[in-house]
C-alpha cells in the first residue's frame, strides 16, 4: 500500500490534472451520447454481452438473433433503434418508460442478455477489447442493461486515461522539459474525437491505448537499448493490437522496425540481440496461435471485411497511387476519377478526426469550427516542418524516435488506404476509412504539436501552447454541447 502511495506521489501534478481533465471530459461524453448511439455501438455491446454471458464469440455470418433480449428491447421497445441517425428523434426519458423497461427486464428468461449469437457484423473482430469490457458487464452491480452499458463506457474512458499517460511518457522520451509533455498529453486529453470515442463502447479506443503504449515503449527501447524484457513487451503489445481489431495489423511492421532501430542505436552484444529477437518472435507466435484458437468456430475469415483485401486480381498500383493522390490533392488531368464517394483529407482528417463527427455520424460541429481547425492544422504542419529544418542538428540526435513515429504514421495510413482501395475496387460502396480509424495516431499528433512549439522562441512556446489547448478545451465543450442538443434538448 505504501509503495502505491509513494508511486502516486511521484505522478507529476501537471499529468494528474490532465488526467482529471480527460476523466471529466470522457464521463461527459459518455453521458451526452445517448445509449447505443455511437458508431456500431449496438453490435459491439451485443458482442460483449454474448461473450460475457456464454464465454464464446458470436458469429459474423450465422445465428438466430443479433442482440440479447434486453438490448433488443431497448432498441425496438424503447426506441433507441429508431433514434439512430435520425436527428428528429429523441431517446426516452420519462420515469414511466424507465419503470416499463425495469418490468420488461424482470420478466426476461435466464440467459436472455447473452442470446445474441449472431449474425453480428463486428463479430469478425478479435476478442481482446470485448473480453476487457466483459469484465465490466459481469461485475456491474444489479446486472441491468443500462447499468452495464454505463460501466462499459466508463471502462472505455479508462483507456483514454491510459492513452494520455503513454503520450506523456512518449513526449518525455523526446524532451526533458515538462511543457512539451503537457502539450502532447493535453492534445490527447482534449481532442473531441478521442473524448467521444472514450465515452462509448467501441474497439477503436482500445486500439488507441495499445498503440500509445507501443509507441512509448518503442521510443524508450531505442533510447535505452534492447533487452529481452522490452522486446517481449513490444511483441506483447503487437499481439494485443492484432487481437483487438483488424486495423491493429498495421502495427506488425513496426515491431521489427522498432527492434532494428533500437539495435542500431546501441549495438548490443550478439547474445542480447539474439535473445531479444527470439523472445519477440516467440511472443508474436504464441499470440498468433492464441488468435487462431480463440476465434476458431466464430465464423468468417481472418477479420472478415474489416481488413478487406478482396480479390487480388483487381489491384492496380497506378490506380491505388492515384486514389491516394486524390485523397489529399486535386485530381490531375491524366488521372481517372477516384473510386467511391467524394471523401478526402478534409472530411477524414479535419472533420472526422481533428474536429470530430459524433453520434452515428449525424452530429457535427458548426462548419466555422472545421475551417478553423483546418487553418490551425496547416499552420502547425508548416511550423513543424520549419522546426525540423531549422533545428536539424537537434532533430538528427533524436532520429530513432523520428523514424519510429514516422513509420507508425506511414504504416497506419498506408494500411487504411490499401484497405479502402481494395474495398472500393472490389465493389463495396463503403470506402472503409473514417476519422476515428486515425485515433491510434493521436500520441503522434500531440507529440508533433509539442515539437513544433518547442522550436519557437522560449517566450512564445507557452503562449502557443495556451492558444492551442485553450481552443481545444472550447472545441471539446462545443462537441459535448451539440451532442447534448441532438439527444436531450
Amino acid at each position: 500500500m505504501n509503495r502505491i502511495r509513494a508511486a502516486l506521489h511521484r505522478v507529476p501534478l501537471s499529468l494528474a490534472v490532465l488526467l482529471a481533465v480527460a476523466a471529466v471530459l470522457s464521463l461527459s461524453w459518455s453521458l451526452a451520447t445517448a445509449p447505443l448511439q455511437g458508431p456500431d455501438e449496438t453490435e459491439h455491446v451485443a458482442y460483449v454481452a454474448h461473450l460475457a454471458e456464454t464465454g464464446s464469440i458470436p458469429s459474423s455470418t450465422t445465428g438466430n438473433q443479433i442482440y440479447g433480449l434486453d438490448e433488443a428491447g431497448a432498441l425496438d421497445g424503447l426506441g433507441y433503434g429508431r433514434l439512430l441517425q435520425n436527428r428528429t428523434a429523441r431517446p426516452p426519458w420519462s420515469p414511466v418508460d424507465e419503470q416499463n423497461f425495469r418490468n420488461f427486464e424482470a420478466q426476461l428468461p435466464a440467459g436472455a442478455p447473452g442470446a445474441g449469437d449472431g449474425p453480428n457484423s463486428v463479430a469478425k473482430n478479435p476478442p481482446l477489447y470485448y473480453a476487457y469490457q466483459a469484465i465490466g458487464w459481469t461485475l456491474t452491480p444489479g446486472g441491468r442493461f443500462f447499468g452495464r452499458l454505463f460501466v462499459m463506457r466508463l471502462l472505455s474512458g479508462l483507456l483514454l486515461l491510459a492513452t494520455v499517460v503513454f503520450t506523456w511518457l512518449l513526449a518525455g522520451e523526446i524532451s526533458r522539459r515538462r511543457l512539451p509533455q503537457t502539450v502532447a498529453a493535453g492534445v490527447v486529453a482534449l481532442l473531441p474525437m478521442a473524448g467521444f470515442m472514450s465515452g462509448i463502447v467501441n474497439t477503436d479506443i482500445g486500439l488507441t491505448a495499445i498503440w500509445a503504449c507501443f509507441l512509448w515503449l518503442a521510443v524508450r527501447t531505442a533510447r535505452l537499448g534492447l533487452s529481452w524484457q522490452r522486446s517481449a513487451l513490444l511483441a506483447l503489445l503487437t499481439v494485443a493490437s492484432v487481437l483487438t481489431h483488424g486495423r491493429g495489423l498495421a502495427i506488425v511492421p513496426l515491431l521489427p522496425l522498432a527492434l532494428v532501430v533500437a539495435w542500431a542505436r546501441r549495438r548490443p552484444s550478439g547474445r542480447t540481440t539474439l535473445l531479444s529477437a527470439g523472445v519477440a518472435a516467440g511472443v508474436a507466435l504464441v499470440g498468433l496461435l492464441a488468435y487462431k484458437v480463440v476465434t476458431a468456430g466464430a465464423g468468417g475469415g481472418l477479420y472478415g471485411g474489416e481488413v478487406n483485401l478482396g480479390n487480388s486480381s483487381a489491384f492496380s498500383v497506378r490506380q491505388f497511387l492515384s486514389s491516394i493522390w486524390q485523397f489529399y490533392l486535386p485530381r490531375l488531368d491524366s488521372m481517372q476519377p477516384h473510386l467511391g464517394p467524394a471523401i478526402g483529407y478534409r472530411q477524414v482528417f479535419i472533420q472526422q478526426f481533428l474536429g470530430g463527427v459524433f453520434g452515428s455520424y449525424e452530429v457535427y460541429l458548426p462548419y466555422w469550427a472545421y475551417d478553423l481547425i483546418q487553418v490551425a492544422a496547416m499552420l502547425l504542419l508548416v511550423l513543424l516542418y520549419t522546426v525540423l529544418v531549422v533545428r536539424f542538428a537537434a532533430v538528427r540526435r533524436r532520429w530513432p524516435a523520428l523514424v519510429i513515429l514516422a513509420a507508425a504514421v506511414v504504416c497506419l495510413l498506408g494500411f487504411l488506404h490499401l484497405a479502402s482501395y481494395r474495398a472500393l475496387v472490389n465493389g463495396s460502396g463503403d470506402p472503409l476509412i473514417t476519422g476515428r480509424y486515425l485515433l491510434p495516431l493521436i500520441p503522434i499528433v500531440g507529440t508533433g504539436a509539442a515539437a513544433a512549439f518547442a522550436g519557437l522562441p522560449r517566450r512564445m512556446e507557452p503562449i502557443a501552447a495556451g492558444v492551442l489547448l485553450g481552443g481545444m478545451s472550447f472545441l471539446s465543450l462545443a462537441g459535448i454541447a451539440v451532442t447534448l442538443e441532438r439527444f436531450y434538448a
Partner: protein
Amino acid sequence: MRRAAIAGVVSALGVFLLLFLFKGLPYLQDGREAIDATPTVLPSADLAPVTVRPGQQACVSGITYGPQSRYVLVEVRSGGHPSPPIVVRASAPGYAATALHPGGIADNGLLIVPIRPASHAVGGGTLCLRNAGRVAIDFFGVPPGRSSSPSVTTVAGKPVTADLGVTLLASPNASIGSRLGDVFDHVAAFRPVTGWEVWILALLVVLGVPGGIAFALWRSTGAAPRE
C-alpha cells in the same frame, strides 16, 4: 520564466473565454424547438404519408404524456392548398386534452398545437388528429422498418402500416440555456446519476477543464528540466 507561465495561462483562458463569449453564449441563447418526447419519429429519409379524409381521424397509441408535453407537432402535406382545420385530442388514463388548429398551414409545414399538459407522467396514452375540414390531408409518417415504433397508427379506426410521426414539444421556441435543468434531467434518465450530478459535471467541464489546462501549463512552464 514566471512571465512566460503567466502568458501561457492568459492565452489558454483568453482563447477559451473569447470563443465562449462569441460562439458559446449565442449558441446557448438561440431559440429552437424544445422536444419533450418523440413517441414516433419524423422521417429522416423515407416518407410514408398517412392520409386522413374529411371527417376522419388518425390516432397513435402508446404515448406517454408528461408535465412538459405542452405542444403536439406533426408535419403536413396539404397538396398545394392550405391545410384544413385539425382537432387534436390527447388522452391517457386520468388525462385528456383537446385543442383546435384553424388550419391554413402551407404544404410541408409544421402543425404545432398547444395542449394542456398532464400533471404527472402518464403512459398508455393516445393522440388523435381529426380532419375537420373539407379536403384530405397527409401527415408525415414513417414506413415499417427500423424507424417504426411499437405504437399503432389507425385511420378511421383501422390500423395502417405507417407510423404517423408525432413529436411532443415543451416549447416551440426556447433557448438551450433556459432549459439546461430539463436537459440534464433527460441525460440522467436510464443512468445511475441524478440531474444534480450532471449539473456538477457540467460545471466541471465549463470551469474545471480550462482551469485545469491553465494550471497544467502554469506548472509545466515553470518546471525545471528533468535529469
